[in-house]
C-alpha cells in the first residue's frame, strides 16, 4: 500500500522512537502487564504502523463494499441503504405467551423475529415425554404440533415479518410447520423470509442438541437445501453458527475457522447430492459471536467474509457473486455477562454490538443484562433493543461503510486472523473434513483447551472482569427476574392430550408410515414431513420414526 522508500523511512523512525522514547519511558514506567495478548494468545503489538500491513494489496485484499472479496461488506452502501435487522432471540413458556412477547417486540420497533424453542422441542421430545420433565417452556417456547405453531404466529403476517428459528436437529419439522402456517395465512412460499439455524455440526461440537448420527443429520440438511432452494427462494436454509462454538470457549480464530469448516462440509454434501452451489450458495447464512475484545472482533468479521468468498470461488468454483457473500447474524456474547453487578452488562452488550455493526453484520441480537440470572424480562429486553436503536440512529457509525478500514491495527489483525484460520482449515482437510474431525473429537479438544486457558487467565487476574475478579462490591443490585410459570408444563401436556383426542389419528398414523418408508428408501424426506405436520403429527412422533431408522448419537466424552 505504501512506497518502498517511505517504508524504509518509517522503519528507521520507528526504531528510533523505540530506542529513544519507548525505552526511556519503560525504564521509568513499566507497562501494566508483562504480556498483552489476543484471545488466540498472539502478542498484541504496542503500536501498529504501515510496516505491519506493507504487503496488503488494497484491491486484492479489501476491494470495495459489495465486491469480491467483500472484506468491506456485502452490500455497496451497507447501512446507508438499510440498517441491519434487529432481531431479539425470544420465546418462553407457551405459544400464547411467546406470541404476546413477539407482538410487543414488533411494536417496539424490532424488525424480525427470532424464535427460541425449549429443549424438548429442539431435541425431538414431546412435552409429555419423561425426558422433558422440568424443561417444558423453560429456555424457549414449547411446540408439540402444528396447533402450537398456529397459536405462536397468530396475528403475525408471515409475508411482512421475517422469522429466524433456532432449531437444528428438528429443523425440518419446524420449518414444515412454519410453511404450513404461512400457507394457511395465504402467504405464498416465495414470499416467505427467514432463517433456520439447521447447523447440526456445531451441535456435536458445542451446543448438544443433536439426535441422529452426523451422517444421517447431514442427509436431512441436504434434503432441506434441495427442497428449499426450489421452493423458498427468500429463505436462508441454514445459519452456520460460530456463536455457540465461541460460547463453548473457542477463541476468535477457532470461532471462524470451525464455522467455515462446517460451511465447507455442508457445501460439499450438497454438491455431492447434485445441487448447484451457485444457486443454494445464496441461501446460506452465518451466525457469529460479538465478544469482548473490540478490535479483534471487528477484524474477525472482516476476515471471515474474505475467507468465505475465497472458499466459494476457488474451492467450489462458484461464479455467482451473490453465492460468495458471507451474510451473518450476530449475537453479543452471553458468556461474558456477569451475575455480579448485572447493570454493567448493558455496557458490555453495547460495545460488543458496536463491534458487530462496525464488522458489517446483517442482523443483530443484543443480550439482555439479566441473562446471567435468568430469562430476560420485558424491561431488560427493551433496553437491549434500544441499545441497537441508539447505535443505529444516534452514534453516526452507520453513516459510512466499514469506517475502521485502513486502521493499521484493524488491517493487521484481519490479516492475522485470516492466516491463522486458514491453517486450521488446512488441518481439518488433512483429517478428512469436519465430519471426521468432529468424530475424532479434534475441534472439541481445541475448544476445551482454549476455554480452560481463558478461565486460568481470569483466575490469575491476567484478565480483569469488572465486578467478578476486580472492583467487587458487596452491595447487591436488586433486579427483577422473569419466572416461567411452573404449572405451564402441565398445561402443555394437557394441550397435547387434547390434540391427540381431536385430530384424525388414522390420518396422522398413515402419514408417519409414509415417512418411514421414504426414510428407508432414502428419498427426500421434506414433503413427507410436511404431510405429517399437516395431519398434526407431533414433533416427538416424527422424530421417533426417524430414530427407528437412523439411530441416536452419543458423544464420546473428552475432558
Amino acid at each position, binding site marked *: 500500500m505504501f512506497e518502498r522508500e517511505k517504508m524504509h523511512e518509517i522503519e528507521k523512525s520507528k526504531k528510533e522512537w523505540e530506542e529513544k522514547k519507548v525505552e526511556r519511558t519503560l525504564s521509568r514506567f513499566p507497562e501494566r502487564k508483562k504480556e498483552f495478548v489476543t484471545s488466540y494468545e498472539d502478542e498484541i503489538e504496542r503500536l501498529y504502523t504501515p510496516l505491519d500491513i506493507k504487503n496488503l494489496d488494497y484491491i486484492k485484499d479489501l476491494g470495495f463494499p459489495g465486491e469480491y472479496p467483500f472484506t468491506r461488506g456485502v452490500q455497496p452502501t451497507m447501512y446507508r441503504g438499510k440498517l441491519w435487522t434487529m432481531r431479539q432471540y425470544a420465546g418462553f413458556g407457551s405459544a400464547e405467551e411467546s406470541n404476546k412477547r413477539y407482538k410487543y417486540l414488533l411494536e417496539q420497533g424490532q424488525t424480525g423475529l427470532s424464535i427460541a424453542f425449549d*429443549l*424438548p422441542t*429442539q*431435541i425431538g*421430545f414431546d412435552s409429555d415425554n419423561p*425426558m*422433558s*420433565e*422440568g*424443561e417444558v417452556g*423453560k*429456555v424457549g417456547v414449547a411446540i408439540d404440533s402444528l396447533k402450537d405453531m398456529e397459536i405462536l404466529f397468530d396475528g403475525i403476517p408471515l409475508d411482512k415479518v421475517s422469522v429466524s428459528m433456532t432449531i437444528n436437529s428438528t429443523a425440518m419439522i419446524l420449518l414444515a410447520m412454519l410453511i404450513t402456517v404461512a400457507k394457511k395465512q395465504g402467504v405464498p412460499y416465495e414470499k416467505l423470509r427467514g432463517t433456520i439455524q439447521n447447523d447440526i455440526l456445531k*451441535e456435536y461440537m*458445542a*451446543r*448438544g*442438541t443433536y439426535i441422529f448420527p452426523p451422517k444421517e443429520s447431514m442427509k436431512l440438511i441436504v434434503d432441506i437445501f434441495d427442497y428449499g432452494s426450489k421452493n423458498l427462494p427468500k429463505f436462508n436454509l441454514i445459519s452456520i453458527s460460530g456463536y455457540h462454538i465461541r*460460547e*463453548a*470457549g473457542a477463541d476468535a480464530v477457532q470461532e471462524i475457522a470451525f464455522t467455515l469448516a462446517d460451511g465447507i462440509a455442508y457445501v460439499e454434501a450438497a454438491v455431492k447430492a447434485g445441487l448447484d452451489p451457485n444457486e443454494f450458495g445464496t441461501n446460506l447464512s452465518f451466525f457469529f459471536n460479538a465478544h469482548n475484545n473490540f478490535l479483534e472482533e471487528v477484524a474477525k468479521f472482516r476476515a471471515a467474509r474474505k475467507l468465505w468468498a475465497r472458499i466459494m470461488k476457488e474451492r467450489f468454483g462458484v461464479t455467482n457473486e451473490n453465492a460468495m457473500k458471507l451474510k451473518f447474524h450476530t449475537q453479543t456474547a452471553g*458468556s461474558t455477562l*456477569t*451475575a*455480579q453487578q448485572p447493570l454493567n452488562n448493558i455496557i458490555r452488550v453495547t460495545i460488543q454490538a458496536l463491534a458487530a455493526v462496525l464488522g458489517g453484520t446483517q442482523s443483530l441480537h443484543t443480550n439482555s443484562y439479566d441473562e*446471567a*440470572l*435468568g*430469562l430476560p424480562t420485558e424491561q431488560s429486553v427493551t433496553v437491549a433493543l434500544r441499545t441497537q436503536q441508539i447505535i443505529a440512529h444516534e452514534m453516526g457509525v452507520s453513516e459510512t461503510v466499514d469506517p475502521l478500514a485502513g486502521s493499521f491495527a484493524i488491517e493487521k489483525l484481519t490479516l492475522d486472523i485470516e492466516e491463522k484460520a486458514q491453517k486450521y482449515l488446512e488441518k481439518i482437510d488433512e483429517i478428512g473434513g469436519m465430519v471426521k474431525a468432529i468424530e475424532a473429537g479434534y475441534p472439541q479438544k481445541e475448544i*476445551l483447551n482454549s*476455554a*480452560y486457558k481463558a*478461565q*486460568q487467565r*481470569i*483466575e490469575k487476574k491476567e484478565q480483569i*472482569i469488572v465486578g*467478578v*475478579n476486580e472492583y467487587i462490591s458487596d452491595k447487591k443490585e436488586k433486579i427483577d*427476574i422473569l419466572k*416461567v410459570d411452573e404449572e405451564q408444563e402441565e398445561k402443555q401436556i394437557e394441550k397435547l392430550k387434547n390434540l391427540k383426542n381431536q385430530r384424525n389419528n388414522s390420518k396422522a398414523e398413515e402419514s408417519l408410515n409414509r415417512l418411514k418408508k421414504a426414510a428407508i428408501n432414502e428419498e427426500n424426506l421434506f414433503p413427507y414431513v410436511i404431510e405429517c405436520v399437516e395431519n398434526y403429527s407431533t414433533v416427538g412422533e416424527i422424530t421417533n420414526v426417524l430414530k427407528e431408522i437412523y439411530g441416536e448419537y*452419543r*458423544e464420546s*466424552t473428552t*475432558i
Partner: protein
Amino acid sequence: MSTRIRVLIAKPGLDGHDRGAKVLARALRDAGMEVIYTGIRRTPEEIVEAAIQEDVDLIGLSILSGAHKKLCQKILNLLKEKGADIPVFLGGIIPEEDIPELKEMGIIEIFTPGASLKEIVEKVEDIAMERKV
C-alpha cells in the same frame, strides 16, 4: 485403599452447554482428583447408577436450563432410595431465591456464575476430606 478423591461430574436434563462442566472436570483433575464426566443429557437414574458404580466421593451437577429444582430433587431421592450417602453439589444459572430451597433439599454447595475454579476445587476437597475422615 486409594485416598484420591473421586468425583462424578454430570449434566442432567436436556441442556447441552457443557463448557462449565468440562472446564471444572479438568481443573479437578489437575488438582489431583479422579474425575468421571458423564457427558450431556443424562437421566437422574443414569447419574445415580454411575455414581454408585464408580464409587465416587462426590457428585457435581451442572444445570443451566432452569430445570434444577426438579432434577436435583429426583437425584437426591434416588440416592436415598439406593442408600447411597454421596454429597451432591450444583453449578449453573441458579436464581438466588432458589438456593435456600435447594440447600434444604440436601444440595451441599451451590456455585453460580463467577465462582472461581480455585474456590470450587477447595470446597470439593473440604467436603471429600470431611467424609473420608
